[in-house]
């Protein structure tokens, strides 16, 4: 009986602590976890994803990055970014600092809509505001190219995602965190199952990457796809693999999830676009 009460107390205490942990406390816990897990990996190196923890795949990757497969996408993205809309405006008119070196500030909580604003959604909102049709978030193409260019101009800037002290913003963050830790799909995996608890182990020949540094290098050129993949298309890839039904790109669930994982990556440098297996 004494044992039961002891456990009960412990559990209640834990639930209370985690329920009321601030995003900043979460981030510190997350960071500490990976620091313990991979004592030989420098924090700043997590921007390199799985290559920060696996030396043998890193070598291959570095040789790919010698001649980046996404170079053409950055050029195309720059041209698209500077091409005026029919009304004469450009993307620059929609963004702070004319859209240059701002990737690290996304996503942010937009008080007007009461929702999370991602860079790619902002790109499409900019098009709509200027009477243009939105771009697809899937299969590479102009959206991925523009996003790649905007990330490229932000290389070296550190992720600086903010969670304002408003209930709505905290709710969005908490919803993203909840999804991250919720088991889904026929195979019953949460994001955290692979990218927190099992990161660094082998799933067949694949090594699940660590849960920090996921957003720094997107959009990413995936060798398997032979093209750029946006972050939300990648989310869908993960969900398909665990046999869950993916959400639509830029819906609220994904935006909240992006908010959570980007916040966990605060302090890491933007190095997008990146190349991945």
């Amino acid at each position: 009986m004494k044992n039961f009460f002891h456990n009960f107390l412990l559990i209640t205490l834990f639930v209370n602590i985690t329920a009321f942990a601030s995003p900043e406390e979460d981030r510190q816990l997350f960071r500490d976890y990976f620091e313990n897990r991979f004592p030989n990996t420098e924090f700043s190196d997590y921007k390199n994803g799985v290559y920060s923890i696996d030396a043998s795949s890193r070598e291959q990757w570095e040789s790919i990055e010698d001649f980046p497969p996404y170079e053409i996408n950055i050029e195309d993205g720059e041209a698209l970014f500077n091409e005026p809309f029919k009304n004469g405006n450009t993307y620059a008119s929609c963004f702070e600092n004319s859209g240059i070196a701002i990737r690290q500030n996304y996503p942010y909580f937009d008080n007007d809509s009461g929702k999370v604003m991602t860079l790619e959604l902002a790109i499409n909102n900019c098009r709509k505001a200027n009477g243009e049709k939105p771009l697809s978030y899937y299969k590479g193409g102009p959206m991925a190219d523009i996003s790649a260019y905007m990330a490229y101009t932000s290389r070296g800037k550190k992720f600086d995602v903010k969670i304002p002290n408003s209930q709505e913003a905290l709710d969005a963050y908490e919803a993203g965190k909840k999804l991250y830790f919720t088991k889904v799909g026929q195979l019953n995996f949460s994001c955290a199952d692979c990218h927190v608890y099992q990161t660094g182990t082998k799933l067949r020949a694949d090594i699940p990457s660590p849960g920090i540094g996921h957003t720094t290098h997107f959009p990413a050129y995936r060798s398997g796809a032979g093209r750029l993949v946006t972050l939300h298309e990648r989310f869908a890839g993960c969900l398909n693999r665990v046999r869950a039904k993916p959400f639509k790109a830029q819906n609220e669930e994904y935006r909240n999830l992006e908010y959570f994982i980007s916040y966990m990556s605060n302090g890491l440098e933007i190095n997008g676009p990146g190349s991945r297996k």
Partner: protein
Amino acid sequence: MKNIYIIAATLVLTLFLESNAYSGDIEEGKKLAFDRKKGNCLACHMIDDGELAGNNGPPLIAMKARFPDREVLFNQIWDPTETNPNSFMPPFGKHGAITKTEINKIIEYLYTL
């Protein structure tokens, strides 16, 4: 005396037939265990001669010694979250990834390890 021969012949025949059905299940069980669309046990467990095995689950060896009770092994494959809600192992049976019959065939194979 004649009866004894008949009994012996029947016994031998039954054993032969049984062991045949048995080895068929073992073989099929192995295929199911290795198939990426079925058990895909190799994704996490080192097994026998399976190539590119994962390592986040324990190696599948000495299965009879580790799971003397067949039901415990069946339940572990059917729904491991029953004993550990945080288990990384998918609830293969409960979520319909593989059928009861398929799990039983996989168990026949696992018991040879």
